[in-house]
């Protein structure tokens, strides 16, 4: 059956985009839709790419762009586990949480179809106050006055930048913007420092993160009601209001669960309220007509690839000892030039300007010691402006 071939192609593309920093599944999707491919075949490729990417994006988040913990305050939790010799545990936590949250999301999917229209009718008129309150909450989680000031500066700077980027004539402008904010800034920071990685040990660990998986599923579902609240790390910040992360594994469980749940309930928002909250679902809606019966095979394909890709991820966790022996400084340097080339090809010289500016903004949280999620002002501020435009 041609669907399985499409799923296989998509899974491979998704694993590739997940492994290589700077290549988002949306980038691959935007290239694929330009090609003359049978729509239903293309639909399965798009969804399998999203699923493969969702699973494998955690690997470079743990192994690549490792900053020096002494000089950079905001080391990601997965990287902190790597620096403690617990990378295999970090990978397995992500895989287990992704699998469990996918199963839970599938079980809650029918309920979400009933709940979404009700919740959206309640939330839609409150979109502007909600986005303002969510932004304020994000900034206030920094707690110290100086850090709140730094975070506000980064948030507003990213937002102003986002407003101009989204209104620029550059093709696919979010690609260089996000690549600079997250991938490029981390890569440059890691090349500037020489970090010795300890020996990695593989130990079983306690399943003490069920509540983080459950919270991830609920938060991922709710995030599909709002525009601009889409990055799992960004959603996880809201969870810090009611969840205490005892250790980095809990945070990884939450973020992985949000990623899987956000994708599955993205179908609910598309079917129930006709809102596509993810790039892959926007592309899917453009190529095939989406209703409940037509969406079900794509949801099953997503779950299938999550299952198979998680098995592949486990293979990598076994190889964690060998992975840390790779000279990541050279690898990161090659990646920097590769990203520059990719941006130049896809977006042209203007894309390089966006990349440079977003890299500078993305480096600010690393050096000012605040959370990097504040750069999501890039999407949130334009969403606030759009929501304000509807109100006033």
């Amino acid at each position, binding site marked *: 059956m041609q*669907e399985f071939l499409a799923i296989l192609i998509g899974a491979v593309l998704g694993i590739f985009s997940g492994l290589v920093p700077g290549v988002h599944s949306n980038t691959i999707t935007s290239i694929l839709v330009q090609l*003359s491919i049978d729509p239903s075949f293309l639909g399965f490729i798009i969804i399998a790419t999203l699923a493969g990417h969702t699973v494998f994006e955690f690997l470079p988040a743990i192994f690549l762009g490792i900053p020096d913990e002494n000089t950079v305050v905001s080391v990601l939790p997965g990287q902190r586990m790597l620096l403690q010799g617990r990378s295999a545990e970090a990978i397995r936590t992500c*895989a287990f949480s992704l*699998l469990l949250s996918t*199963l839970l999301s599938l079980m809650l999917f029918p309920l979400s179809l009933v709940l979404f229209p009700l919740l959206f009718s309640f939330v839609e008129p409150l979109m502007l106050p909600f986005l303002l309150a969510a932004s304020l909450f994000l900034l206030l989680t920094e707690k110290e006055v100086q850090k709140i000031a730094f975070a506000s500066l980064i948030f507003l700077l990213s937002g102003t930048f986002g407003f101009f980027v989204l209104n620029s004539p550059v093709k696919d402008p979010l690609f260089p913007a996000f690549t600079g904010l997250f991938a490029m800034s981390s890569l440059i920071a890691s090349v500037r420092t020489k970090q010795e990685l300890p020996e990695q040990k593989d130990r079983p660990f306690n399943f003490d993160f069920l509540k983080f998986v459950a919270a991830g599923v609920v938060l991922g579902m709710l995030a599909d009601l709002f525009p601009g609240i889409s990055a799992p790390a960004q959603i996880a910040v809201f969870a810090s209001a009611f969840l205490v992360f005892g250790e980095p594994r809990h945070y990884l469980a939450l973020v992985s669960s949000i990623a899987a749940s956000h994708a599955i309930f993205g179908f609910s928002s598309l079917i129930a309220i006709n809102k596509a909250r993810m790039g892959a679902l926007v592309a899917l809606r453009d190529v095939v007509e989406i209703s409940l019966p037509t969406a*079900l095979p794509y949801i099953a394909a997503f779950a299938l690839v999550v299952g198979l890709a998680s098995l592949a991820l486990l293979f990598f966790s*076994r190889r964690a000892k060998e992975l840390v022996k790779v000279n990541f400084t050279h690898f990161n340097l090659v990646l920097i030039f590769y990203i520059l080339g990719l941006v130049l090809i896809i977006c042209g010289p203007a894309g390089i300007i966006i990349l440079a500016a977003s890299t500078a903004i993305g480096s600010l949280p690393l050096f000012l010691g605040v959370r990097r999620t504040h750069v999501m002002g890039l999407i949130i501020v334009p969403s606030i402006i759009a929501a304000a435009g509807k109100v006033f």
Partner: protein
Amino acid sequence: MEIDERKTAFLAIFLAVLSLFLLILFISSSKPASVSIAAAQQMPENSPVSITGRVEGISIKSMEYVSLRVCDNTGCITANFHRDVYNPFLLSMGQYVTVIGNVRAYMNAKTLSASQVIA
């Protein structure tokens, strides 16, 4: 409970098998039954249908839309589709094709709005 590699692999295999079963179930139920062209013409508008026949005419209506005349031993029907669905230049007269789509009624004649063409 301790999480080791075996338990994680078991969960992954369980999810993969479950979703594979669901995928096969959803795909087979979402594909319309294959019928003859005469039977397709008797079906009400918007009915999902799959027909197989030989190409008896190809007309490129505009830069974007294609009209395909398909016949079997029970009759002929016109299938209309966007060029993104299938490249019309890859089709030839007399070639056997399967067209999946929905029945449309236009000017007292039944046509197909094709979502998939398999040559």
